[in-house]
């Protein structure tokens, strides 16, 4: 099973290093780091999460800019180890409140203590934040929250990898706050990552939603919780799996292609009233993951035009229309567009009175980058760019440029219409009224418009 576990910083420093079986030769962390840094250097490819060097298997995940790595000599299940690594990162975050290099370095003794209980002789034991509590004696040392990015909705997705968003909550599950009183609260986040590809004529080629209902509970005594979803929610697409967008629209029902659940979830009444019963364990976890290929209304409409404007010149017109209601605001929007490889210069022309917009021509990667701090629902924004080429173009500019890719986060916007109807805490007491936070967020996973 697992021979070693270690966490390396971005520079390759050991932050924690634990050997469980003493079978891997010395220097494995260095071998790993060199391999990852210089993986297929000339093609600039990323190292895959699983690779083998001289009979030692290295399995890693990247979390908060850190490498969480295990080594093994045995032909084990890669998913087991990858899930475990991710879970170790999450348990650590539960304890430390914030997971980054600084907090890990300050609390490395606590991490060793955790590791001792999580893995023994290379076998995973338990990763439940709650079960671990009784064996952990170190108090977490909190890192200065002031040095972290502000806790706005955008910051919610700054930690962790892009695809595994964390919650805004950065307090430890175990540490007592100033005054010794713990605030009773529970967070439920509905996070949807959407992928849409528009054809050159603007219609939708593919679309998909990968959603997660994420929970983080700070309730004492672990009361049972009831989470009610849309009553007309249906699971599993009937009939053939070809995607006919016209027939599946309308009605407004939410159809999930498929979903899976955390093991604490009781599904006894789910088929009847779409209610999930669970006793949430401490810490952060995904209650449910779901996938939707049903047609949905994309939040942004993107139009791109590239036209020749005389020899070795071209003009680009980018237009974004926000197709959601005006009381919702998208933020941290970045639009990227690759341009022909022989582009030398680009000059930009923003719309009059544009605020919080920046433009850039990335010479190395030959792309235009347009960043907008926020976009209010219903508004439209345009960017014009003039390109200067080092040679005459080959005629077919649309084949040499694009596709346009867009990144954004829209807080309090929910693409699929999946709703939490209510969140009930089964603890009978008049005075007991914990804070309940239900938040929705939509994020771009792959939002692409072709030319």
């Amino acid at each position: 099973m697992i021979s070693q576990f270690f966490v390396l910083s971005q520079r390759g420093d050991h932050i924690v290093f634990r050997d469980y079986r003493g079978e891997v030769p010395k220097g494995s962390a260095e071998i790993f780091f060199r391999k990852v840094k210089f993986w297929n250097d000339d093609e600039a490819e990323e190292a895959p999460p699983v690779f083998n060097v001289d009979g030692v298997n290295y399995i890693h995940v990247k979390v908060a800019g850190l490498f969480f790595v295990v080594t093994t000599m045995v032909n084990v299940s890669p998913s087991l180890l990858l899930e475990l690594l991710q879970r170790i990162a999450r348990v650590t975050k539960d304890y430390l409140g914030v997971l980054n290099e600084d907090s890990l370095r300050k609390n490395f003794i606590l991490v060793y203590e955790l590791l001792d209980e999580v893995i023994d002789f290379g076998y995973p034991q338990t990763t439940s934040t709650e079960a671990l509590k009784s064996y952990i004696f170190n108090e977490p040392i909190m890192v200065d929250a002031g040095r972290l990015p502000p806790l706005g909705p955008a910051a919610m997705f700054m930690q962790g990898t892009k695809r595994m968003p964390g919650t805004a909550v950065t307090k430890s599950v175990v540490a007592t706050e100033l005054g010794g009183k713990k605030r009773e609260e529970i967070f439920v986040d509905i996070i949807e990552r959407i992928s849409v590809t528009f054809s050159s004529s603007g219609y939708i080629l593919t679309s998909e939603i990968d959603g997660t209902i994420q929970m983080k509970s700070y309730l004492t005594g672990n009361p049972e919780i009831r989470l009610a979803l849309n009553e007309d929610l249906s699971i599993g697409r009937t009939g053939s799996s070809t995607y006919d967008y016209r027939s599946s629209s309308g009605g407004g029902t939410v159809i999930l292609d498929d979903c899976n659940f955390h093991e604490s979830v009781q599904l006894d009444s789910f088929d009847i009233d779409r209610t999930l019963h669970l006793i949430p364990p401490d810490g952060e976890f995904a209650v449910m993951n779901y996938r939707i290929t049903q047609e949905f209304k994309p939040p942004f409409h993107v139009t791109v035009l590239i036209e020749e404007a005389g020899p070795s010149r071209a003009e680009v017109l980018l237009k974004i229309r926000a197709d959601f209601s005006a009381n919702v605001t998208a933020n941290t929007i970045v639009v990227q567009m690759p341009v022909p490889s022989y582009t030398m210069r680009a000059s930009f022309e923003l719309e009059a009175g544009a605020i919080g917009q920046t433009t850039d021509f990335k010479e190395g990667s030959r792309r235009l980058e347009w960043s907008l701090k926020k976009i209010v629902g219903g508004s439209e924004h345009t960017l014009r760019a003039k390109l200067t080429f080092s040679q005459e173009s080959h005629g077919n500019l649309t084949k040499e440029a694009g596709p346009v890719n867009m990144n954004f986060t829209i807080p309090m916007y929910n693409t699929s219409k999946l709703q939490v109807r209510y969140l009930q805490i089964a603890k009978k007491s008049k005075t007991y009224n914990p804070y309940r936070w239900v938040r929705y967020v939509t994020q771009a996973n792959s939002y692409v418009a072709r030319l």
Partner: protein
Amino acid sequence: MAPTVPSPAKSASPSQPSGKSEVTDLKQQLRQLAGSRAPDADDQRRDVFKRVISCMTAGIDVSAAFGEMVLCSATSDVVLKKMCYLYVGVHARNHPDLALLTINFLQRDCRDQDPTIRGLALRSLCSLRVPNLVEYLVAPLATGLKDPSAYVRMIAAVGAAKLYHIAATSCLDAELPAALKALMLSDPDAQVSFHSTNNDEIVLQLSSTHYLCIYLNCLICNCRIKEFSEWAQCLVLELASKFLPSDNNEIFDIMNLLEDRLQHANGAVVLATIKVFLHLTMSMTDVHQQVYERIKAPLLTLVGAGSPEQSYSVLCHLHLLVMRAPMLFSSDYKRFYCQFSDPSYVKKLKLEMLTAIANESNTYEIVTELCEYAGNVDVPIARESIRAVGKIALQQYDVNAIVDRLLQFLEMDRDYVTAETLVLVKDLLRKYPQWSHDCIAVVGNISSKNIQEPKGKAALIWMLGEYSQDMHDAPYILESLVENWEEEHSPEVRLHLLTAVMKCFFKRPPETQMALGATLAAGLSDTHQDVHDRALFYYRLLQYDPAVAERVVNPPKQAVSVFADTQSSEIKDRIFDEFNSLSVVYQKPSYMFTDKEHRGPFEYSEDLSNLTVGAETSEKVISAQRYQENDNDLLLSTSDKEDIGTAASNGSASTYNAPSDLIGPSLLSSQTPSETSLINPGGPTYSSQSNFSLDDLLGLGVPEAPAAPPAPALTLNSKPVLDPGTFQKKWGQLALSLSQECSLSPQGAASLMNPQSLIRHMQSNYIQCIASGGQPPNYKFFFYAQKDGATAFFLVECIVNTASAKAQVKIKADDGTAAEAFSALFQSALSNFGLS
């Protein structure tokens, strides 16, 4: 981003201490604190301990402070204890004498009132890994297994495995396995119960899969599996996948009980469950297919959830399934489109899957999508996409539209796109010569000067030579290329140039004669051995007889029907058997990347449950033998294996047998067999002959073929004696004499429901079975035979697939010269099976 990783000892990181002086300083402080009874002594000790461990983490050798650490360890502070245990655990192995000092306080802690302390101490005690301290372990372990606290029992169960790892005999002498077995079957705490099972080595020692079966049964049927932690579930499911239920009802029961595991949010649990499902239904084709349908949605959901790393692993497994049953996924093609945010290792997998699932109904969409990627800024992916389009074209019947797309790529005028496309057009022409007209028209417009990449250039030159009669300028383009011979760096291109000029010469002699002379001269003075040799060969061939030369260079060609697969089906099956392991990610069976003692956590159970044993062999021999055999495979390089695989499966020499380089051998192997033998004599020709003789036999359908083979100069000893140990040794030592595929009669395949019948049949042909095993439809046999009146033995590994009625035969012989005769005899015996 530093170009080299600084050695940890010199690490300049400000937060990490460094250097020798630090260690001496720490030692001093520890010594001062050792006897201190000051009220804040524990806090001070914590600080110093922390610094010691920080140094240890950074890779600094702090073993010098061992004595001082131990002196400071007498404390009631748990945090301090833990740090000290951690330190001791790391350094005890290098300081066995000093480690003895720690035994005392660890043993004392094992009797502490607090179960947490007992557990901690026991775990640390077992983690010391010092062989000569083993005697101190046994007693605390035995007590630990009976501890009232589940936490301690669990640690003791794992501890027993640790003990077994360093000193198996003391573990067995203390009768720990028996205690474990009791825990496994009756402990009220699921975690404890699990960890008693998980001691793979110990359970093996119990040498009784019987208990394991009972255990698994009670686990699964009592739904106890759900009490386990998700990690334990994964490992138990892995065990369960090796377990063969007695009847189909039991199979369905297990599957129904595990059904909800497919909805688990943990991908590892889902994959482990899928493995159980796939393995249970191996012999039930229609249910097996239902399983595929059932697991599709959960897998796709897992790909979308979680981090890119987690989805990568799931995608690798999906890739394996797609490759095995592309039809079942053909309507899900959109799920395999590349997304902007996918890392390149994910995109590559997706491209391969798209290629595999392309069929009549979705090709248009898939190819359109792939063409979008061809213009991608990510050049490696653009290349892969173009190759994918080409592969789809090669596997489709209606390639019309695809050829047009490919030709459009050539108009994109990007170096790498052109180069990749040319290689594809060349392969396409080899399969669909009827397209030559359209392709040549476009290819003819490409200037060879614009192509830099050797592969693309070589492909263009191949087309110039092959279609010189249709390409007006061919001789002149070739001539200009020959003029620049010196500047051509790639030997591959020069080789192709040689051949192309030769071809052109026979088609358009007057125009090429000059160029041919120049080419041969340049080739003969080339510094590259292959180029020189080929030039010399052509020169002599022309000298000998131009007519013969023409037949060698420009034989009538048959279109290639199927390009050789890069991986043999045997390897693919092995990877499938190892579902939910690293083999799937690497796309290699485990023997190619792990040494034998690390094959897998539950390898043994396969040996015990799947193999029935032939006379006079013990279970242990077979397991050892399996390893031997794997090692033998290991000795052959991958390419060797592929060659054997292709030669065997094709049975004749007229197909391609070097998938790695399609251009080179194609010149040789696309010719008729007789010509090939001129260049490539040996094995393949032989195997085709032997297959003919076999075909004859089958064709005649000889109803009662005599036990004697057609014309064997070989008779076998009727009562050879070979003990398993010797067999195993011989198998390890001898080189492979022959490897081929042969067919069974349908009756034979049918009667193989009972492997014993084949064993008896072979015995009647004086071929003895030493071991056999497997489950339908795959059986594996090891046979041996002895030449009559000689000491020479023949050893055979025979893998029979009853579904396809084919057998893979590997023969090793003491006397290599008799191997062919023996092979003929063996095959005739095998093909008669079921007929008499």
